[in-house]
């Protein structure tokens, strides 16, 4: 028969061989997988915050941007519309700029885009621009074919193209004046 040592008295006692309920074991976790899992959760949260938390990522259509001009003030925002034929290359405050007219639902806005326009930038192909309203004279306005000419223009510095879903070659139709027309 085995014996145990009593820690307090130091005397040997009988070994307790009564069956004991086994302690539930915590399942072993693999640290790398837990780190990947936590990173994935953190990334999802980051992406959601980035997507939902930034109102500037919403695109105003030209007619909405014109209607909200007073509220927008000098705030930067995004605007989507269809460039009209007649692009004018000029200089604005010492920077190269392309001046054109943007249109949605027959509402026009003049634009001065600073910097290089997108590779596929063409009249009839909708673009999303980022910038703000400016009240003043726009150089090159007289050369535009269909200017808004209301004393305001959009000064933008970021351009992305919103291409259509038409792959029928020459049968594909161009946007005449934005998504609503």
């Amino acid at each position, binding site marked *: 028969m085995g014996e145990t040592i009593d820690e307090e008295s130091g005397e040997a006692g009988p070994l307790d061989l009564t069956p004991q309920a086994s302690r539930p074991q915590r*399942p072993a976790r693999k640290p790398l*997988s837990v780190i990947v*899992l936590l990173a994935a959760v953190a990334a999802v949260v980051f992406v*959601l915050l980035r*997507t939902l938390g930034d109102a500037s*990522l919403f695109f105003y259509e030209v007619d909405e941007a014109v209607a909200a001009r007073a509220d927008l003030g000098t705030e930067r925002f995004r605007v989507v519309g269809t460039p009209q034929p007649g692009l004018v290359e000029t200089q604005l405050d010492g920077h190269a700029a392309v001046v054109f007219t943007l249109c949605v639902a027959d509402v026009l806005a003049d634009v001065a885009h600073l910097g290089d326009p997108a590779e596929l930038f063409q009249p009839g192909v909708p673009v999303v621009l980022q910038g703000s309203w400016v009240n003043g004279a726009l150089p090159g306005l007289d050369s535009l074919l269909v200017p808004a000419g209301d004393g305001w223009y959009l000064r933008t510095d970021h351009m992305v193209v919103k291409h*259509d879903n038409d792959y*029928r070659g020459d049968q594909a139709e161009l946007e005449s004046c934005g998504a609503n027309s």
Partner: protein
Amino acid sequence: MADGRTSTGSSGSRLLGVITLVGLASLLLFAFVLTEPDVRLHPTTGEKFGQFDAVRLIYLHVPMAVLTYAAFLTCAASSAFYLVRRGAWWDVTAHASAEVGTVFCGLVLVTGSIWGRPVWNTWWEWGDVRLMTTLVLFLLFTGYLALRRTAADPQRQARRAAAVALIAVLDIPLINRSVEWWENRTLHQQSTLAELKIEDLTLFTLMLGFLVFGLVFAWLMLHRFRVGWLEQAQARHDVTLAIAERQAEMETLDVGAAIGESGGEK
């Protein structure tokens, strides 16, 4: 391996592999050689415009996106069956389809980004609803795959993973409808096929893309399923072996004890 197999291949899967390779070669030929680039003449300015050669990515990107949906929907359906019936077959199918789907989803993000650079003028747009919801799907299933390796108890692991899959798959309708519901928060075009704005060789090549990537999906699923099944068989075999070894140990101890006792009596 537990049942004596040393490969996940079979005559059927090898034939499928050969057909898939021939299909891929044909798809690349049609996509990058035989179809025309997207070049149109502007009715007002007379200048050429369109997506030019970048349009060829449609034959890879769109089929991969559809197969991503198919893989994750398979994962969710198998997970639901697993939760109801508790069969290992469903769990292995869910795991395999999640893994294949995550690979496809990653490729969708990469090809979309490569396509976006020349056409949209950007590699990536933070805040674009279609892009973000697709990225979230990729991250959710990356998390799912990581989760499958965290718990030591395979039953618990499978139950948790099934629950995650059923939640993660809810992102798919959001991705699919995002271009309609949040038209002003995405650069992504609306559905071409739904509006039938594609025809002739372009349409044929896109359909060929669906078929070929469907074969790639089936081939990958077949092998990944067999790997998963063999892993489970191996695990069961290891447990059986461990029990047998322990029993043999106990028998040896009993015999030893019996010899000891009988020896002590002498």
